[in-house]
Each structure stands twice: as structure tokens, then as C-alpha cells.
């Protein structure tokens, strides 16, 4: 995220110095030397697996290939099978995209609202609220998922009982995990609950940098809170919103744990498969690593396209 901010800040105008005069080749090398350890680690831990997945997606790769080390190239067969599979278009892709769009929107909106609340609070109250939301953030995804599943346990789950008391569901017959919509509603609660603290704290940090005078001037001009937010705060914090939106999108697109651990999410209820769980099931339950890798590549490509799209949208006027 720092790269985005560093890259965008000089571009925003005032203090741009232009190309540095008299470039020294040694100075050119120095930053790379400093970056080398990080690049090596990233290359080993991120780039190599990424390439390996892409390579495996072009092979018929099963347990036998894994043991023997043989390779069986099949070209784009895995992709052809994937794109020709109704499950992709009817289930996995819609589940992934719609779920991500909904959860990203909810996460960013809720996070921003909490940040706007925090910035108005006194130091003590802010500390208390910050601690409270940090707890939600600190809970591991596995633990959080089990807690939400526990709350929605059919029959005697706390949330089910509450909904029953409100007359919305019948606790004796309702099983929220068997229906696609209610399954993802519970999953969305879990994911948003786990994701909004990051947005809230990042936006809060941004809000604290907005000079008070500008907001006051807007108030004097008669702008209401809604107008102030969209005309003053949001434009100034655009890079911050870019970062939280892009990161939330990446996380919510490739959501796996929170789905896989829910009852029926491990492949039993086919209507709730998403790209992440489908890739896992094909790879590790079917030993079809080639097809699983192809799904993973598709997911990555999708994410890249969306991320680039976002960045263009957010920075079009300024620098792209």
C-alpha cells in the first residue's frame, strides 16, 4: 500500500521537482541494493509459486505426476474445460463476484462511518472504541467463522433464536446454511465484521490529516455534512480510499477460510462454491491440480483486471 501512496503523492502537484539533474549510476544501483533482500524473499515466496501455479495449469497434474515428477503437458485443456463448465458461470463466478462486490461495499461504507465517528470522539472514547474494533480485527478468520456459525446454529443458535423471536424465521425448521442467499448472508456478516476495522483505522488516519481550516471554511460556506464529505474529505482522501478498496477487493474476492469452514461450504452444498473453494476441492479432494491451478489463475487474472480498473477510475483525472 505504501507504494501506491508514494507513487501518487508527488504526482498531485505542488512540490514536483521533475527529473533529477546529473544522475549518478552508483546512485541508480543503490536503491536496488537496498530492495534486494525484500525482492529475493518476495521472489521466492510469491513469484515462484505464482509461476509454478501458472505452469501446472497447463498440465494434467495428478498425484501420480506429483510422485513421479513426470510432466504431462495438455496446453489449454484445463482452461477449455473450466470455461465450458456450467458450474463456473452459474455458481462459482457469480458467487465470487456478487459476494465480493457486496462485502467490499459494506466493509468500506461501514469502515468509513466508524472512522467519521471516531474522529469526532474525545481521546478516551476513541481509545475505547478503537480497542473494541481492534478485537474484531485481531480474531483469526477460523475462530471468527466458528463463532458466526455457532451463532447461526440451526435450532438453538443465538442469532436464530433472536430472529425467531422477531418472527422472521422459524427456529425449529430454519437451516441458514442450506440456502445460497442465507449462507452468503452469514458469510458476509463474518467477512465484513472481520474487515471493517482495517478500513476504519486507515480512513481515520487519513481524516486526521485533513486540515481543520478547510472543513471549517466549507461549513462557513454553508455546506452540510454530506456535502462536506463528498466535496472536501473524499477528494483529499482519494488515495486512502483507493488503498482500502483495492485491498478489500483482493481479500473478499479470494475469500476461502470463511466459506470452507461453514457447514456445507466444503463442497457438499454445490450452490455455495466460489472460485477459492472450488479450486481447493478440485486440487486437493480430486487430485486434479491442473484444473485447480487453472481456476486459481483465472481468479488472479480477474483480480488484476479489477484492481487496474479501480486504480484508473480513481486516478484518471490526476495522473493516469
Amino acid at each position, binding site marked *: 500500500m505504501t507504494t501506491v501512496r508514494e507513487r501518487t503523492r508527488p504526482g498531485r502537484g505542488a512540490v514536483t521537482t521533475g527529473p533529477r539533474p546529473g544522475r549518478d549510476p552508483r546512485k541508480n544501483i543503490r536503491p536496488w541494493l537496498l530492495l534486494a533482500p525484500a525482492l529475493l524473499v518476495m521472489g521466492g515466496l510469491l513469484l515462484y509459486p505464482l509461476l509454478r501455479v501458472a505452469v501446472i495449469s497447463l498440465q494434467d497434474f495428478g498425484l501420480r505426476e*506429483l510422485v513421479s515428477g513426470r510432466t504431462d503437458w495438455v496446453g489449454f485443456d484445463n482452461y477449455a474445460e473450466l470455461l465450458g463448465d456450467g458450474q463456473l458461470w452459474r455458481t462459482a463466478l457469480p458467487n465470487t463476484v456478487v459476494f465480493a462486490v457486496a462485502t467490499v461495499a459494506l466493509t468500506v461504507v461501514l469502515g468509513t462511518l466508524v472512522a467519521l465517528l471516531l474522529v469526532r470522539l474525545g481521546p478516551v472514547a476513541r481509545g475505547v472504541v478503537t480497542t473494541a474494533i481492534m478485537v474484531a480485527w485481531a480474531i483469526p478468520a477460523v475462530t471468527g467463522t466458528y463463532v458466526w456459525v455457532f451463532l447461526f446454529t440451526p*435450532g438453538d443458535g443465538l442469532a436464530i433464536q433472536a430472529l425467531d423471536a422477531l418472527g422472521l424465521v422459524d427456529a425449529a425448521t430454519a*437451516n441458514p446454511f*442450506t440456502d445460497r442467499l442465507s449462507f452468503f448472508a452469514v458469510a458476509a456478516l463474518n467477512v465484513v465484521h472481520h474487515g471493517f476495522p482495517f478500513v476504519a483505522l486507515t480512513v481515520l488516519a487519513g481524516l486526521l490529516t485533513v486540515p481543520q481550516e478547510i472543513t471549517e471554511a466549507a461549513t462557513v460556506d454553508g455546506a452540510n455534512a454530506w456535502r462536506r464529505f463528498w466535496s472536501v474529505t473524499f477528494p483529499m482522501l482519494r488515495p486512502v480510499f483507493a488503498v482500502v478498496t483495492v485491498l478489500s477487493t483482493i481479500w473478499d474476492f479470494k475469500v476461502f477460510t470463511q466459506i470452507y469452514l461453514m457447514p456445507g461450504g466444503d463442497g*457438499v452444498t454445490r450452490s455455495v462454491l466460489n472460485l477459492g473453494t472450488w479450486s481447493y476441492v478440485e486440487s*486437493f*479432494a480430486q487430485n486434479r491440480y491442473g484444473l485447480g491451478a487453472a481456476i486459481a489463475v483465472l481468479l488472479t487474472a480477474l483480480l488484476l483486471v479489477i484492481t487496474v480498473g479501480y486504480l484508473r477510475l480513481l486516478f484518471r483525472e490526476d495522473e493516469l
Partner: protein
Amino acid sequence: MWSKPGSRGLRRAAVALVAASALAVAGCGSSPDTGGAASGEGRTLTVWIMEGTNPDARPFFDEVTTAFRNQTGASLDVQFLPWASAHDRFVTSIAGGTTPDVAEVGTTWTGEFGEAGALADLAPRVQQAGLGNGLVDGLVEAGTVGNALYGMPWYAGVRSIVYRTDVFAELGLKPPTTWDELVQVGQAIKAAKPDMVPFPIAGDNEYGVYPFVWGAGGEIATQNGTTWTSALESPQARQGIKFYSELSTVHGLSTPAAATWKETDLRDSFAQGQSAMIISGSWTPKAILEAAPELQGKIGAFPIPGPTGGISPSFLGGSHLSIFEGSANQDLAWQLVQMMSTGEFAQKWGTESSFFPGTTELLNQAAASSDPLVAPFAQQMVDAGRSVPVTPLYGQVQGKKTISTMMSSILTGAATVDQATSTAAAEMNQIFAGGA
């Protein structure tokens, strides 16, 4: 991960070197291992055992370790794996060249790993040791691919029905012996104990479905030469699945929550006193009593009844002891396998874990037991133990959770029995047709 190709090459070279030197030593006139011949001085065997089978596994393996050191001089490094993640652990260890020497392998995985070339063929060793005829058939069948035996039968178990004797006594009920009686008993419990779930039907529990398919005279899949075809669409199989699911959808003996339950959820609900009868493995009552000591003396078991009497067959599952192809100490490993799967240790393991031993002699001893929590299971196993289709492709069907998906879609009303069985059969046939 990123050094995998290199390390695999290295490992292969190392294995070849060790194998060559072992051959050289063997050539120097030592007799082929006949059991005794302590040759393991200073060596260590890595052993992977599944967690939870035997609640007291650690003291058991302390004894095995001592006995094995006395016999061979080698020591053991026993590691415990949870069942749920074991398949992944095996696969990643195969990929990374970090397989153990000996491992407990679930019977439905043995063929899969064996066919992939990860396990050593034990058939010659079993023959040489004269054990060929004394092993439980179902377990040998499950470990055999072609002529190779990739796992030594270690223990086995079956599922029957575990019930609350106190509830039955209070209501004057007797264990059902036909399917009609099963419904009647369930309805009697439902009427008298509205807070209890008479007989929960778990959606994600394929081993609860099979007895009713087999009991109705159906099959999961049939073999024709080397090809398999799903038989779930046969009238018999459909009738069995219909009866089983209607216990929930028509007779209301289950709960809607159970549509997404796994086998462990059945056990938990029984231990919490919520259920009156559950389909349960012979190994489960012990765990139930540990979780709920107040149920002591209130639990019984009966074999899964047939439609009009007799016993519905139940899946005979268990574990093999396998030796990995990558082990440099295969002779030593075989001595350990033999020690654990025959004689005193096999019997002790069976008693402690409530499973049945993998040799016919020991199994017959166990079947003669009068323990009310052992005898019904033994009867089920000896008289009506069955295997799922013995092909690595069936492991893929199980990995895809085809049967669980079918059951849960019927239980939630998303599909009728006819629709769900057709979908499941199509998926199964697709996998049989070529692993797609």
C-alpha cells in the same frame, strides 16, 4: 516449496545410494530377514498414526517403541496426525519427499496412494511371512490394486446403530429388527419425548446412506471388467435412499439442522442427550462416554436392521499399515508393521480403541465377546461388512462428496430422490469415465 525439484533429485540419489549399499550388505551373506535379525541399531523409523482412534495411544506406542527397540535396536519417532488433515499431509509429504517410513493409511486412500507409486508392495512380504490366508478379506480387498497389496490390514470397524437403553426401557421399546419397526420405534420416541430427536439423518455422512442402499438390495456402483458404472439409479438403491431420507422428510424423526451435519455432529448430539438413536461406529461409544459420563449404562447398540429382517450391510472401514516407497529402511519397517498388525499388540490396540483387529483369528475372538457395546458391532462386521467400490476413482467420488451432496439436497428439499440420485450417478460416472 521452491527448492522442490532439486531436493527431489537429491533424495532420489540418496535413496538409490542407500538401496545399493543395502543390496551390497545383503549380498554379503546375511539371511533374508526372518523376523529376528536385529539390524536397526542406531536407526530411527518415522511413524505416522492417526489421532483419536485410540484415546490412550501414547502409552500404547511407548510400549511398542520399547518392544521394537528390544527386537531390532532401532528407535521409533511416532507422530500423530488428525484424520481431517491427514490426506493433505500425505499428499504434501509425497510431493516434498518427506514421507514417513511407516504410516497408518485409511483403507479408502491406500489404493490411491499405492497406484500413484508412493507405497511399497507388501504382497511378497506377506506371503513370505505366511500371513496370506489369515487376514480379514474386506481389508485385503481395499488395499489391493492389481496384484499388489499396498497396506497390511491393521484394524477395522463398522457402523451400527447406538441407542439410549434408558429411553427404550422407559417407553417399553425393543431394538427394531425391520425397517417398519425402525419407523415405529422412532415415532413412539417422537410422541413421548418431543424434545428429543429420535433418529437424526446427517446430510454429510455418506456411511449412513450405504447400509440403506445395500439393505434394499442396491449397489453403489458395479464393475464390468475394468470399468465401473454407478448403480444409484437402480430401483433398489432409490428405494433404500428414499426410505432413509423419508425418516427425516416424511416421518420427522430427524431435525432440519441435520441436513448439514457430519458424523461427528451425530455423536455430539447424542452425547448431549438430544438424540435417541444414531448411526455410529464401534469406536464412538467410548468417546461418547468420555464426553458424557452420565450416560454410562444407558447406551446400547444394535445392527442396522434389514428391510424385513436380517441385517443391512454396513461399510467395513479401517486402516492399513503401509510402508512408503521413499523409505530407506523398508526391511526394518516391515518388522514394525508385522509387530503391530499381528499378535499381542494388534489385540491390545483393538481392545483399547474399540476397533476390530485385521487378522481373522483375532477378529473371531473379538466376535465372541459378550460386551453389549462390542457384540452387535462384531455381528455386523462378521455377517454384514461391505466395501465401497474398490478403485482409486472412488476416492475421487468421495473427495467430491457426491453422496453427501445428494443426501443434503434431498433432506433440504432442493431435489427429489429421483433427481438427486440421477445427478449423483452422472457425476460418479463422469469420474469413473476418466477422472474428470
